[in-house]
């Protein structure tokens, strides 16, 4: 009986792509390591994560303690100077990482879960269910987010961070749902989904185990996009005073800095540094987003010549 042995694999495929899909952490790490943008984003994110988890390592001062000299310039004792209340700006920055990062990740996560649930289900069910869910998505999509955020936050100023997160999730999920629905729709007629149906799989199993795994890169991209949105929007809300002003986060730092005219009063770092931190964290999410795009779609990868080789 003629048998076929496994010869060398066929035309080159994206090994990174497939390894990514295989899902183990080690493979993911390798995929990220191979991509410059991913490395940059990961490094920044890792640094912020460290600050969030072990703030005491970097900044031993209590960020809220108003015990230092007021409005002091940067020095060895206070790397970024002090605020007009006598708090150490560096400590505030480091300790504030936790809240900003947590909000970004929680909003990113919840918004993505909602996007996936609604978008993919709408695509797979089709028909009336799809129409209803799409209408629902479109309503949220069309509502102008920022004014809505402002209005809701203004009415519930005492709810603090929970309301903030809820509002951001509510305004942040609909765009992703649209995207995911589109992609799921394009997958619907793929043979392996028909094959799964003919195999006798139940619908929910098809959605969870057949469709979602092939959409991981888009889902991750969604998560990163939502996280970025959360960082910026949360900072914005806190800046205009709609967050909890007694909380410790970069946005609140901006709020207090603005209130005390930090830039004019000779404490520019108090206003600038939180802004830079926000930009860096947002940038990290963006870089990772690009990187996942490239990992997921080899055609987008920059072509770099292998070092030193060029055939005559």
């Amino acid at each position: 009986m003629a048998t076929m042995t496994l010869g060398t694999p066929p035309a080159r495929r994206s090994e990174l792509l497939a390894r990514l899909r295989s899902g183990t952490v080690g493979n993911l790490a390798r995929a990220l390591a191979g991509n410059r943008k991913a490395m940059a984003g990961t490094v920044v994110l890792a640094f912020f994560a460290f600050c969030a988890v072990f703030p005491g390592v970097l900044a031993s001062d209590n960020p809220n303690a108003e015990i230092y000299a007021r409005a002091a310039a940067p020095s060895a004792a206070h790397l970024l100077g002090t605020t007009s209340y006598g708090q150490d700006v560096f400590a505030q920055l480091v300790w504030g990482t936790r809240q900003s990062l947590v909000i970004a990740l929680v909003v990113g996560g919840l918004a993505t879960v909602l996007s996936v649930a609604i978008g993919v289900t709408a695509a797979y069910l089709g028909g009336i269910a799809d129409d209803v869910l799409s209408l629902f998505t479109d309503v949220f999509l069309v509502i102008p987010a920022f004014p809505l955020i402002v209005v809701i936050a203004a009415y519930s100023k005492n709810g603090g961070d929970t309301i903030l997160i809820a509002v951001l999730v509510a305004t942040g999920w609909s765009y992703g749902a649209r995207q995911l629905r589109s992609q799921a729709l394009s997958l619907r007629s793929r043979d392996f989904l028909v094959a799964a149906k003919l195999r006798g799989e139940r619908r929910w199993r098809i959605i969870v185990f057949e469709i979602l795994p092939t959409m991981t890169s888009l889902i991750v991209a969604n998560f990163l996009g939502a996280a970025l949105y959360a960082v910026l929007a949360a900072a914005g809300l806190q800046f205009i005073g709609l967050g909890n002003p007694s909380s410790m986060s970069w946005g609140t730092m901006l709020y207090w800095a603005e209130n005390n005219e930090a830039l004019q009063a000779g404490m520019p770092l108090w206003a600038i540094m939180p802004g830079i931190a926000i930009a860096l964290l947002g940038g990290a999410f963006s870089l990772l987003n690009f990187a996942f795009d490239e990992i997921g779609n080899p055609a987008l990868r920059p072509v770099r010549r292998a070092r030193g080789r060029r055939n005559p």
Partner: protein
Amino acid sequence: MADAILEVHGLSVEYLTRREPAHAVDNVSVDLAPGEFLGIVGESGCGKSTLLFAIAQLLSPPAEISGGEVLFKGKNMVQMTERQLRTVRWKDYSVVMQSAMNALNPVKSIAAQFADAMRAHGTRSKSDIAARSREVLALVGIDPVHLSSFPHQLSGGMRQRAMIAMALLFSPELILMDEPTSALDVVAQRSLMVQIKELQRELGFAIIFVTHDMSLVSHFSDRLVVMYAGQVAELGPTREVFDAPMHPYTSGLLDAFPSIYGPKVHLDGIPGSPPDLGALPSGCRFNPRCSRSTAACSTTVPELYEVGGRTVRCLLHAPERSDAVAGLREGSRPMTVEAGSDA
């Protein structure tokens, strides 16, 4: 070849990767006479489409030409700038792609696309454009009323014909075709091939026709190139290659076609699959799958040997193995006296 319209000398194409670049096309040389129909056949991944795109100067990163030259009417296209290429493109040579649905703009009518092409290459007058559009459609057997149709309104065969009409707009001397019939049914395929051949006879252009289906070109091409793993495995007049294939890969390919004629015969195809270009076998690239390989085949890399007007890259036809005395002619390789010692 004297008076060749196209000369490809030692063309190589690399795909840049993080590791060693992969040679999709490795040192390919072939000449084309005016009005000649040249078929290039091979399995998926053998480099035939890449070769075609390289000749047409249509490669984009990460693929790039890493060596050799392409002389079209004496001028080396590899070194031409984009601007210089534009004067030659579509006027002197044109390209027909694999799938009309991918190559035609779905939101523009056929007339608009023809007009685009003509304006891009210098024709301005509306009446000239209209007249020529009708002319080329008539050439391929499409009623001019379809000028106002959109691609999706035409059937598959008509779309491919429209693509060919577009390629004929400036009466080029060479048309490069990349599997133009693969999306069609067998009857439409046959009629398109006949049409292409008739047009060639009428208008006298040369054709390079790339396909994975050997039988398709068997009655239409003058010469045939069989490619394997980026290299030329065999090259010669079509009928001779079919009747007496020299390279074991060519005979393997021929034997893989179930026939509707003759008795029903058990076929085995060619075992295994084409090699990964980044991990080529040592010696002859085909030797792991070859039913006639010897010990030498995995150590010696075969050159392209000339045998009676044909060339083949196989140690079975290396001059040293020939029984006859090889004579040396000035400036050329030693030729074996007997042509194609076995099939």
